């Protein structure tokens, strides 16, 4: 009985430290997410979206920039967003307020597909 109490006493600081670590890590993750939340870039290069899958926090604005010599578009599969045609170096932004998975593609070159996951 006495021995068990000892273990608990010894374990307590470890548990506290672990809890602190976990919450600290959470705090870091949250602040990183918030940093992303302001604005995230997707590059359109060589007929592909990079990154093809992007995970962001709700409230994030994603900006696509066309780096190709050929125009592209950014069109949501479910018609949630749709850019005008983007010539070289032109940009399109959309702010994702609701969590979910948003598939999108280039309506001119439909083999070009991408995904934004909003958490």
């Amino acid at each position, binding site marked *: 009985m006495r021995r068990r109490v000892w273990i608990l006493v010894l374990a307590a600081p470890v548990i506290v430290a672990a809890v602190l670590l976990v919450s600290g890590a959470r705090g870091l993750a949250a602040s990183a997410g918030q940093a992303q939340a302001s604005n995230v870039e997707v590059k359109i290069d060589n007929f592909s979206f990079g990154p093809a899958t992007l995970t962001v926090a709700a409230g994030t604005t994603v900006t696509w920039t066309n780096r190709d*010599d050929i125009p592209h578009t950014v069109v949501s599969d479910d018609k949630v967003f749709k850019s005008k045609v983007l010539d070289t170096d032109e940009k399109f932004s959309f702010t994702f307020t609701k969590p979910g998975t948003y598939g999108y*593609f280039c309506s001119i070159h439909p083999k070009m597909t991408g995904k934004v996951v909003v958490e």
Partner: protein
Amino acid sequence: MTKNVKDEILHDHNADGIDRRGFLKCMAWAGTGALCVMQGGVLKSYSLSRPADLGGSAAAAGELSFVQISDSHMGFNKPANPDVAGTLKAAVDKINGLSAAPEFLLHTGDISHLSKPEEFDTVDQILKATGTEVFFVPGEHDVLNDDGAQFRERYGKGAKGAGWYSFEKKGVHFIGLVNVMNLKAGGLGTLGHEQLEWLEDDVKHLKSSTPIVVFAHIPLWTVYPDWGWGTEDSAQALAYLKKFGSVTVLNGHIHQTMQKVEGNVTFHTAASTAFPQPQPGKADSPGPMKVPAEQLRSVLGITDVNYVRGQHALAVVDSSLA
């Protein structure tokens, strides 16, 4: 006409179906223009870079001669070709220099680069110098932002749906199809149910001996699906054309010449007048291919097509702008 002229591509698909050697030779020609001459089941391709070879040949003797041009991309100004107006004018010079003046032109789309009114205006102005009627089908670059409303207003009066139509010239039935609308994520070109129904109805009354020429922007055969070079429902369209002894399919989009023969159907893609694109899978993406400036015109071109009554395939001649 049977003289084996250098650069002449002859496909005798009455005799043995697919002329593999001819096909490969045609592949090697990537980027030149073509003249198509329809003659008794033999589809012939001649190099238009050697128009002198055509004088007095079957091409010149054809009853119906027309020229296909494609992918003028007016408005494009990147290093692959900073002067697309200049190369389109060179194509017009080539057309005007043909020994047999074509009765009309087919433009298989991507007239403009960004669907801007001034881009269409420039092309119209340059093509006027041919003094010839031009029939258009849209490329995906011609229907940006407005679902093709401007294209139909300019070129599609009297056309059905998204701009498809047919017409007769000297016993040949021409069908212009639209496969660049409502493209789906991950997919290829699409004709769609409404257009397919129209096509079935359009050809129903025709005799099977009627030569058919189908023209559309994206290839109606699967050239390279990874780059979207094909049409989802083209098999259905071709099924409606099965009864015909001679079907010639003319496409653009891939900015290089390519040819394939499948039974009674001859598929042909034309060169661009603006810039070349890489061979399928030979680059990371199908983006414009930069070649040394002095080589550019050798990889651009026009296509001349000729039909001779009583012979059921067209002769197709690719010719570079060099």
